[in-house]
């Protein structure tokens, strides 16, 4: 019975957050615009040689995924903090960690889903060798939840401050570097025709680790921030 309750509350929370996001559709577009600009920028900057483009493609796609996740991150708790919805969340009759999982999921859905859909297009535009496409997609699938859940910790820590995104990214990017390294390693291995299971397994481990631990860290951080 208690289990079912948790599920109801969680779906209610997710549904609400999704409809809030859908009302402010323009905010949804910001990360996508950013992605598109980045992807157009590099061929322009580097010149059209397909070979070089292909080499930098994994890095460029991943760095932009990282940065565009950052763009939407602030909104994760900030608006809720300002209008009091965050305290109500802490008062929900479920373990707050579940509610946090819900919020992280919504952020992931809004920021990563477009990326996962656009990934083949980006790979094509940037001339990534075809062998690596699937691996790229896998790294994004495994890695973007990590971006959202680690990012949530940073936002939770800074939500009561009115600091710009700079502080947030200063806190977060160092934590995310391992992910970036494994992801690009995997794609590069795949591009050279080898199986990339090793780095992908590492990413899976990171994924499991962060998604299970981060709700607790976020909860601790929120309790510090909301007072």
């Amino acid at each position: 019975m208690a289990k079912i309750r948790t599920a109801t509350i969680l779906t209610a929370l997710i549904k609400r957050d999704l409809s809030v996001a859908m009302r402010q559709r323009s905010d949804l577009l910001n990360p996508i615009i950013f992605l598109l600009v980045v992807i157009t920028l590099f061929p322009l900057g580097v010149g059209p040689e397909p070979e070089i483009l292909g080499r930098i493609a994994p890095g460029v796609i991943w760095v932009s995924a990282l940065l565009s996740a950052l763009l939407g991150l602030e909104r994760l708790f900030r608006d809720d903090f300002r209008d009091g919805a965050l305290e109500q969340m802490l008062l929900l009759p479920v373990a707050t960690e579940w509610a946090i999982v819900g919020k992280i999921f919504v952020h992931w859905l809004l920021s990563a889903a477009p990326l996962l859909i656009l990934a083949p297009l980006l790979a094509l535009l940037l001339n990534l060798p075809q062998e690596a496409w699937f691996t790229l997609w896998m790294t994004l699938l495994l890695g973007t939840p990590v971006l959202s859940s680690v990012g949530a910790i940073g936002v939770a820590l800074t939500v009561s401050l009115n600091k710009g995104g700079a502080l947030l990214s200063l806190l977060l990017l160092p934590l995310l570097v391992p992910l970036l390294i494994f992801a690009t390693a995997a794609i590069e291995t795949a591009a050279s025709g080898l199986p990339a299971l090793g780095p992908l397994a590492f990413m899976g481990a990171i994924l499991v680790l962060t998604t299970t631990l981060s709700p607790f860290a976020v909860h601790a951080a929120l309790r510090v921030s909301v007072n």
Partner: protein
Amino acid sequence: MWRWLHPYAKPEATFRLNQKLLPWFAVPGIIVLAVGIIWGLAFAPADYQQGDSYRIIFTHVPAAMWSMGFYVGMAIAALIAIVWQIRTAEWAILAIAPVGAVLTFISLFTGAVWGKPMWGTWWEWDARLTSQLILFFLYLGVLALYAAFEDERTGAKAAGILALIGVVNIPIIHYSVYWWNTLHQQSTITQAITRLERPSIADEMLWPLLTCILGFLLVSSALVIMRLNNEILKREIRRPWAQQELTGHTAEGGQS
């Protein structure tokens, strides 16, 4: 654990302990460090490949090792602060962070200076170098987050959470040379210590190096202890014992 920690939850007890410990770190620290440096710079033989430029090792390696060690120490303090809500542990985070940041900076700087003759470049985006740079950013992040809060306790708690999470970077720094085949050489010394075998480095170079490592540890610890005591005094300034401490009415160690 709690029973052991509990007495030091009282700032005054920590302060007294620190006062007793400080001379045991500061005095030997300065002596050991001086001996190690002079030994390393003046008496150890020149390297047959690198000539004299290898002598940077005597600052580079200790700084690099302890930049990581102090981060772990800071994370442990953070854990204690978060789990047991002990204020002294919160202040310990703040006492360690700047010292650690300086150590990290020294290792980066000496590494870069050493890299020029060795690899022909100041900076290379090699995994070890980059992860060490990230350690520097982490230290800065902890300090920046603390400074960003108006309320010190909130700031210390937030910084503590970040410090704890940042620990993931430490194994990355250490194993980066194994995971990626890059410029930076693999650990000979740490490996030797952990595997109890003779390191592949000449004894005449090893001993001054070990002396320097010990010296760095002692001196940095002394700095941390001093900073921690300052912090305690600053926060407890209104308490009678701190007043007495400052005005110096009671004899040293008179009451505890």
